[in-house]
């Protein structure tokens, strides 16, 4: 099957031009995202992860290289507005600051904004808005003013606004970065549920415990892919991630350090606090038992 999004040797630079490229924000990037996948993109500030997201839905156009959406090439030719809408209809985006992406003064009006722009008939918009608000669990706030909601609620409204456009894929560009732990949890639960229902999710984040939920992790450094694969495999490579200036999940870090210090061999791919605690206690008991035995 065609991948939903495909990058081929994509380069992008904010400074400089084609003839004299300055610093590359994205350099020679090739990647594929399949339909229904949950991909997390990790990286330090300035690693090019947000630029990658903006390239995906044509906010930015690459300096060189090609991008395909569902097999259609979206680079290297003059594009009409129609082409751009086709892509943005398929690939929605939720940004970091919920305040700066809500347009209307009433929640449901804001959710309706996207479909209205697409020229969807009124009754169909009504239906989509109700569905989208149900999915994010904000139906009861439909007539509320957005500025009176909490950060997590606002971000869920923003997500509903994208869902109402019926995209195939949603990119979350650090959408949990400005939220408190409660809000972050609300938003992450929504994202996971969306993915389970078949939505392709691209999650750009700083938080490792969010990234471990993904099917695949892409770690970026200086505009290039530094590491990618199953989160368990990627995070087990603790020292390599540290080199890239990234944290690993706290549980992995603890087990890694214990293993190193005592020569234990507890598996690293544990992200759940309870399991981690159980494994460590068992190990301690085992070691003590041995000591007593001696």
């Amino acid at each position, binding site marked *: 099957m065609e991948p939903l999004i495909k990058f081929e040797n994509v380069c992008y630079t904010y400074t400089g031009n084609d003839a004299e490229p300055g610093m590359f924000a994205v350099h020679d990037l090739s990647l594929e995202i399949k339909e229904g996948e949950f991909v997390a993109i990790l990286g330090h500030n300035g690693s090019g992860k947000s630029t990658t997201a903006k390239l995906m839905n044509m906010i930015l156009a690459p300096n060189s290289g090609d991008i395909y959406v569902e097999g259609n090439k979206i680079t290297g030719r003059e594009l009409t507005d129609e082409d751009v809408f086709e892509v943005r209809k398929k690939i929605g985006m939720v*940004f970091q600051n919920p305040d*700066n992406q809500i*347009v209307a003064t009433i929640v449901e009006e804001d959710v309706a904004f*996207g479909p209205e722009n697409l020229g969807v008939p*009124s009754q169909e918009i009504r239906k989509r808005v109700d569905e989208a608000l149900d999915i994010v669990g904000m139906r009861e706030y439909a007539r509320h003013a957005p*500025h009176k909601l909490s950060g997590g609620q606002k971000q869920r409204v923003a997500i509903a*606004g994208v869902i109402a456009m019926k995209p195939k894929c949603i990119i979350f560009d650090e959408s949990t970065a400005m939220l408190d732990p409660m809000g972050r949890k609300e938003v992450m639960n929504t994202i996971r549920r969306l993915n389970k229902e078949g939505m392709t999710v691209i999650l750009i984040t700083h938080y490792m415990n969010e990234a471990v939920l993904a099917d695949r992790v892409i770690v970026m450094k200086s505009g290039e892919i530094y590491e990618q694969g199953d989160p368990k495999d990627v995070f087990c490579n603790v020292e390599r991630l540290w080199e890239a200036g990234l944290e690993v999940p706290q549980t992995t870090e603890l087990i890694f350090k214990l293993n190193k210090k005592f020569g234990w061999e507890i598996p690293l791919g544990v992200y759940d606090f309870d399991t981690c605690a159980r494994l460590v206690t068992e190990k301690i008991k085992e070691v003590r038992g041995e000591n007593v035995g001696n």
Partner: protein
Amino acid sequence: MALDVTIGQYYGTGSVIHRLDPRAKLLFVLTFIVSIFVAKDVYAFAFLALVVIASVLISRVPIRLVLKGLKPLVIIILFTSVLNIFLTRGEELLFTKEIIKDFWTVNIYKEGLINAALLALRIIILLMGTSVYFSYATTPIELTDGLERGLAPLKKIKVPVHEFAMMMTIALRFIPTLIDETIKIMNAQKARGADFSTGGLIKRAKALIPIIIPLFVSSFRRAEELATAMECRCYHGGNGRTRMNVLKMKIRDYVFIFLSLTMLAGVILINIYANGYKLL
């Protein structure tokens, strides 16, 4: 810092007036304003005052709330009245006194008093009428919607009606956000020892600069992010855009428009045929 900002003064009661189409209300307010300025006869004023009182009663907005809305304008009302008392020349002199010999004489005529009262009444009913229909019984968003739809024919002569309505919506949306931001910046500056409450006018005005500059900077950043977010949601101006809530004129709206026009006709007829006191 959840500041509870109410934009406008919407007071929802679900009355007939609340449920009218905003375009019908716009048209009513227009004819109402014209009527007020056309009115010359005392009876015409009485008629319009009745219309306002009936509107307030039907809308079920508490009369005290409506009167409170007049408070900020009391000075203007008093000022025009006082000017009228002293400056109107009529026939029936009530009071005269020479204050500076051969130079300044105060004359108060009966007509001056009546004129002053009528002008005050004119301002009061104008304010009460428009505020009941526009701010108490119509949400800002309905109003913007009504304006966009009502003025849609002007698009033919290239008036950017949709763009104006969009700007209004975004402005309304960002008022509370920017108020929050202002308070945050003020607190940040206070924490560094800024002083906004002492000193003369110039010193205080200068103290505001460290608030205004960061506020502008952040507004520009917000504007850019909002523009990107809107683009991502396929915003491309008013062409080919549909709406979720389509305004539909119902029978009651047409009846209401008919009543508005009747009101205007009534005022004109009263002006011609009634023989009450006429405004000078």
